[in-house]
């Protein structure tokens, strides 16, 4: 019989001599099962009600919980900052922003781009096979798109940094300038995708609390990303009007998201309000939203106040990524969330 090649590589079919023994063994399992087991009653209805209402099978989970470890939420956080930093740098360039700021943005992007793959590879069950991520390009898999986005972003931001550093050192030929602009623009676009796709990644899953928030998640992660990028700039001393405006915008949007989450209490959102994940998400939302906003509004005129607002926002942003993963685990463990879903 013709053997299917990929499978033959994976696991060899047992040799023919062994095959006879295993087939006999399966017969033996069947015989011993039918010897031991017997029906306790004939196949006859015995009167009484039917179609009992049981909400789940002994309350056991109907879904498998996410297996991702601590690296993945940290990657969501760093990827968001790296991507949005590169994007901010490019827009600053468009509006003739300071060279120091653009340089800092690009380097933040590059450091992030260097750390992100390490975190993702560490989370793999088989880290040595990380290159398998690049054996297919699959639009229907958000994880596949994410792998390609990260690769594209890393390369673009590396090229941008190299061109920028060369330009700073006086290599001012038009080709280099053109290449710099191209690399920066590409890093900005892929950076936006990098900051946003993580919301799509968990939104397009079977986990009810994630899939039912699939439109909120990318918006939240992107906001967290650009606010974080602006926060890093402020902490690095770029206390310019632009970062102030971005800080206000990010914590303002996060406040709105927090208000919306608190007002809209759907059953599927239980893990967002109760238990450990609920408490973590509330704290994260308060830090990113109202706390950062109020600090900036009342103490934002001073550098210390701005740095405090930026720091609080960053802590909230990091905590929020963990809280969403924890909420996903709680949601997968609750059989009702999956079984009571209507078509």
């Amino acid at each position, binding site marked *: 019989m013709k053997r*299917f090649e990929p*499978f033959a*590589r994976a696991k060899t*079919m047992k040799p023919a001599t062994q095959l006879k023994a*295993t087939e006999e063994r399966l017969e033996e399992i069947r015989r011993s*099962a039918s010897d031991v*087991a*017997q029906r*306790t009653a*004939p*196949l*006859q*209805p*015995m009167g009484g*009600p039917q*179609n*009992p*209402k049981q*909400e*789940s*099978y*002994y309350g056991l989970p109907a*879904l*498998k*919980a*996410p*297996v991702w470890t601590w690296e993945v939420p940290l990657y969501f956080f760093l990827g968001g900052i790296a991507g949005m930093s590169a*994007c901010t740098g490019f*827009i600053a360039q468009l*509006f003739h922003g300071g060279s120091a700021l653009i340089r800092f943005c690009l380097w933040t992007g590059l450091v992030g781009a260097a750390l992100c793959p390490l975190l993702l590879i560490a989370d793999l*069950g*088989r*880290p040595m*096979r990380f290159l*398998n*991520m690049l*054996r297919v390009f*699959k639009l*229907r*898999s*958000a994880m596949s798109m994410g792998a390609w986005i990260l690769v594209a972003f890393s390369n673009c931001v590396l090229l941008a940094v190299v061109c920028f550093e060369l330009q700073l050192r006086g290599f001012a030929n038009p080709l280099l300038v053109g290449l710099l602009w191209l690399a920066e623009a590409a890093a900005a676009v892929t950076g936006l995708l990098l900051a*946003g796709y993580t919301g799509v990644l968990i939104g*397009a*899953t*079977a986990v009810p609390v*994630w899939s039912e928030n*699939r*439109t909120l*998640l*990318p918006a939240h992660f*992107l*906001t967290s990303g*650009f606010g974080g990028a602006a926060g890093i700039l402020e902490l690095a001393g770029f206390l310019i*009007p632009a970062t102030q*405006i971005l800080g206000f*915008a990010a914590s303002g949007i996060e406040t709105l998201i927090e208000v919306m989450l608190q007002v809209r209490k759907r059953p599927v959102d239980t893990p967002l309000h109760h238990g450990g994940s609920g408490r973590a998400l509330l704290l994260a939302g308060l830090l990113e939203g109202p706390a950062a906003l109020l600090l900036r509004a009342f103490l934002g005129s001073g550098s210390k106040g701005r740095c405090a607002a930026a720091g609080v926002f960053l802590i909230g942003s990091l905590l929020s990524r963990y809280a969403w993963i924890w909420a*996903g685990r709680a949601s*997968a463990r609750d059989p009702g969330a999956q*079984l009571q879903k209507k*078509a």
Partner: protein
Amino acid sequence: MAVAAFLTDATLCIGCKACEVACKEWNEVPEDGLVLSGFSYDNTKALGASTWRHVMFLEQPEVAGPQMADTKDPFRWVFLSDVCKHCANAGCLESCPTGAIVRTEVASVFVQPDVCNGCGYCVVSCPFGVIDKRPEDGRAFKCTFCYDRQKAGLIPACAKACPTQSIRFGDLEELHQRGKSRVQELRDRGYDDARIYDPQETSVGGIHAFFVILGEPEAYNLPPAPVVPTVHLKSAWSSALISAAVIVVLICVAFAFQTGGTL
């Protein structure tokens, strides 16, 4: 194309677990915990990376039925051997970023163990909670539909070992017919809650391992309305792109103010 299928019939299952044993032995699946659950005679609890057949033991109080136990609180005892559904639109297969999960020539869903890198995305993409990562190995595993046996012209080990033909293996169309007539037969005999579980009207588009059950599917942890997660991609990506556009405008405004020096 011939589509291989399982028809697993809860009204024929005697709860002997021969399918669990046969599956473990043939596929050399490692032991995954010897614990007593307290849930009837079920100590397996759920499908997982190292459990590819799982016999459920439902105790349905105050319901008359075929396996009425002789106790002072009578209940209907229903058994069902759960398995990977081999969905027509499979969440695990769609989401796999390495292409490790493929559809075979008999339309079953197969994880190539030499390609899987253990990213864990299939785990959250299965609407039935079937596939899982084996921690000590790192890769994801589930029922192979005994693809190796099928290639050698043999039927899957669980179907082979089943002593009551509760697990039937064969062509999908034929088994659909058999399932329909079985449900009709059961209803004629007074089992008004006998039904087929095969969510064809959902985005999953039907399953190749379907079931004859008594009562509501929820009682078996089978979702009445499973969704293949790829249907969420469009709205999630739209949100990402719209948000990204708004944020780009915001950053432009921030730096435009900066250059204007109005703040």
